[in-house]
């Protein structure tokens, strides 16, 4: 069965678009809370200003970065992949400039979810003075519709 593309011109035009740049800070509170969540313990943390801190604090920082609004191409969505990358360790007390970007939008035919659309967004964290990249996070959502032909009913 042939069907048209789910990636409309409007959707495709969003690839590469960016949100507003905002300042985020690696605070003591963020480090402690992130350690509670991911390690289940605060043991071993060094909390002197400028000390290196675990990269999982990105989970908190990226929540403060406004995302580009992408119209949902299909009614249901699922997280399929995410990633954190670091050029150097994060440091306690540092302020970074962050901005989100729509990295890619593509569709997939077939498979368990039938005709689906993948939207990948990234957030880059940069040094304010030099603009050097410090870290980046990426998240890929899959949009799908179990009512469409080709989709199986045992989806997540």
């Amino acid at each position, binding site marked *: 069965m042939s069907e048209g593309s789910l990636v409309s011109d409007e959707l495709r035009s969003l690839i590469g678009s960016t949100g507003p740049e905002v300042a985020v800070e690696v605070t003591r509170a963020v480090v402690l809370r992130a350690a509670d*969540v991911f*390690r289940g313990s605060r043991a071993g943390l060094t909390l002197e200003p400028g000390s290196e801190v*675990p990269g999982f604090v990105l989970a*908190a920082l990226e929540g403060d970065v406004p995302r580009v609004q992408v119209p949902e191409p299909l009614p249901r969505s699922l997280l399929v992949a*995410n*990633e954190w990358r*670091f050029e150097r360790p994060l440091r306690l007390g540092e302020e970074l400039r962050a901005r989100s970007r729509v990295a890619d939008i593509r569709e997939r035919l077939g498979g368990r979810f039938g005709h689906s659309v993948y939207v990948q967004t990234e957030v880059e964290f940069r040094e304010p003075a030099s603009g050097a990249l410090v870290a980046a996070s990426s998240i890929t959502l899959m949009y799908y519709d179990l009512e469409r032909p080709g989709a199986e009913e045992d989806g997540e």
Partner: protein
Amino acid sequence: MTPIWREGDELPPVRFEPSLERVVRYCGLSWNFPPFFYDAEAARAHGMPGPLVPGPLKLGFLYAAVEQWLAGRGWVRQVRAAHRRPDLVGTPIAVVGRVGRVYEEGGRQRADLELAVVNDRGEPSVRGFAVVEFFAP
């Protein structure tokens, strides 16, 4: 420079307890509150038997496991998760890993790790990958 790991080394499983409290703490940390992470009824409305462990929380567990294996001998440059199936809140999971490649880049020794999150039946729910860089001795 002697590597702390060799290619093919299996890394010991690191267990995590994704309790409801921990999931709610994650939602607060990320300021992201989809109800199916903590509300059983909302999860059932999505066709799931119970609340789901957030995917980004599992990415953080991958990071935390790698940190634990490194034990202060290096740092995590990259961690990636490909989510294959859901895990339910309250069901223990473990991160398992294997050293895929040990190499030098930019004058520093690095390793690529193949990772997975497995449930209590040993089924993988996440396939992961990490790059670590060792501190100079």
